[in-house]
């Protein structure tokens, strides 16, 4: 009996080594409602009707902890979340690199445009409050975003209203950046509705919102992306250059859109290697 107990103890410890913690984002109801009330649905890693926004925290082992955290915004056109290959899988990779990966299950806007950023702001506030406990440096908390999640990430990187809400760096995977001509129309309609005003369109076209305080970024995408035109990333990179912000951009010749952490992406290994090198150069 004692042996069984010991075995169980070791087994549980082993599992606990790379454990994740799930945290509800809001103690009560969030300030802004998106009006969605249907049941949350998880179809094979694609989540729609997020009703309870939450964080899944993957902390690295203390022996390899580099004091860096990344809040991850999965993609899905602002209508759902591809939370596995653009969320958990990326968080686990970061964890293996000694970096805290924090998957943000954010609420869909449902044309209430402030909602996703509201969830991110809550997330970064929470992470900064935990930074001493998790042994994360307060100037090494970044954001990552895939596709529409990249729009959220670039919005967060250009619309922060205080130092605490500013991500320290951005990792953008085939991001939607603009709400203008070369946008992803589905994402735009889901965020801004079918007839946004010119000023709303400008405000959420993040290539137009870059300034000297915008954090450094790395952009990773494919040339043959027909869902979200590479022009989005090019426009953001160009705006960063105009403001003398360090930036890196890798436009792979193939892969299309949405490859995330899939290892059948031809440049999967090269992409991770280049990202890893970039993370090391961030005066980290």
């Amino acid at each position: 009996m004692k042996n069984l107990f010991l075995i169980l103890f070791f087994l549980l410890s082993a599992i606990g080594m790379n454990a994740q913690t799930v945290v509800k984002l809001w103690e009560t109801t969030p300030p802004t409602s998106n009006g969605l009330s249907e049941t949350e649905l998880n179809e094979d890693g694609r989540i729609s009707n997020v009703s309870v926004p939450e964080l899944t925290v993957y902390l690295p082992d203390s022996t390899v902890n580099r004091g860096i955290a990344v809040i991850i915004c999965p993609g899905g056109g602002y209508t759902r979340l591809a939370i596995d290959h653009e969320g958990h899988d990326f968080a686990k990779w970061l964890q293996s690199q000694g970096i805290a990966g924090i998957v943000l299950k954010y609420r869909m806007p449902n044309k209430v445009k402030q909602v996703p950023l509201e969830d991110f702001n809550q997330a970064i506030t929470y992470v900064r409050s935990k930074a001493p406990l998790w042994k994360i440096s307060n100037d090494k908390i970044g954001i990552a975003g895939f596709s529409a999640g990249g729009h959220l990430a670039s919005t967060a990187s250009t619309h922060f209203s205080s130092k605490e809400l500013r991500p320290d760096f951005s990792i953008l995977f085939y991001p939607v950046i603009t709400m203008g001509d070369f946008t992803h129309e589905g994402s735009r309609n889901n965020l801004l509705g079918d007839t946004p005003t010119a000023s709303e369109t400008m405000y959420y076209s993040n290539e137009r919102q870059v300034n000297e305080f915008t954090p450094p970024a790395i952009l990773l995408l494919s040339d043959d992306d027909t869902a979200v035109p590479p022009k989005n990333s090019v426009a953001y990179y160009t705006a960063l250059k105009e403001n003398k912000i360090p930036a890196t951009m890798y436009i792979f010749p193939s892969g299309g859109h949405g490859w995330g952490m899939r290892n059948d992406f031809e440049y999967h290994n090269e992409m991770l290697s280049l990202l890893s090198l970039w993370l090391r150069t961030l005066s980290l």
Partner: protein
Amino acid sequence: MKKFIVFILVVFVSVSVHSQDSLKVWPNGAPSDNGLTDEAELFIYLPEKKDSQKTPAVLICPGGGYAGVSAVYEGHAFAKWLATQGVAGIVLKYRLPNQHKEVPFDDALEAMSIIRSDSDEWHIDANRVGIAGFSAGGHLAAVFSNLNSNRDINIRPDFAILFYPVISFEKVTKGGTRTNLLGKTPSANEIYSFSADRLVTKNTPPTIIFVSDNDSSVPSTHSVMYYDALKENDVPAALYVFPEGEHGWGMIKSFKYYDESLSLLKMWLNTTVLTSYN
């Protein structure tokens, strides 16, 4: 005696494995004059002959701000590396313009004609001849990618490889590249005709571009402008903007991304150019 013959044979074989031809681009004199005494030359590095299949080739234009031709790394070293990848590397030591703008382009045109007409002799597939350029040589290569010519022989490169290229002449770069080609007061027409981003059409060849974000000699925006123009015209491309490295790092092993840059180029060559034809 027998040992001596064996020795000679061994020497001959080891020399010919890395054989290199060189020839003058204009053996009978160039049609244009730059007022200088330099001569255009080609240096040919052929891959080891593996089978009957003809190889692709790259015409390489080293950099130097149109005031010199930095052929060591941005010419010969790159050509040798290409040869190890099964691609013929042909270094063009072009004549300096000395403000005679047609001169380097005349040399590149003639070089391309020579390569395509002599392709059999060098075991080269005339349908897979690309161009590469570094810095000002990248300007030459990018502009050349978009040139039309009424020559009988096809001069359009099948693909292009650009390293930290000068692209646009609408802003003057540090090293005087534009001035050395077009003089101190070029006309607006000259500026636009030699700004490669303005020349791109749907017929521009597939292009891969490498540059560093912190390049203070030729800003990365040149590369990005060219990539943008390629996208406007649906031309397949790849663009790699490394975080560091500054300018002129081509084929220098201490460049932090040396291995990555060649690995990415190799992958691109494999899918663009080295897949088996016919």
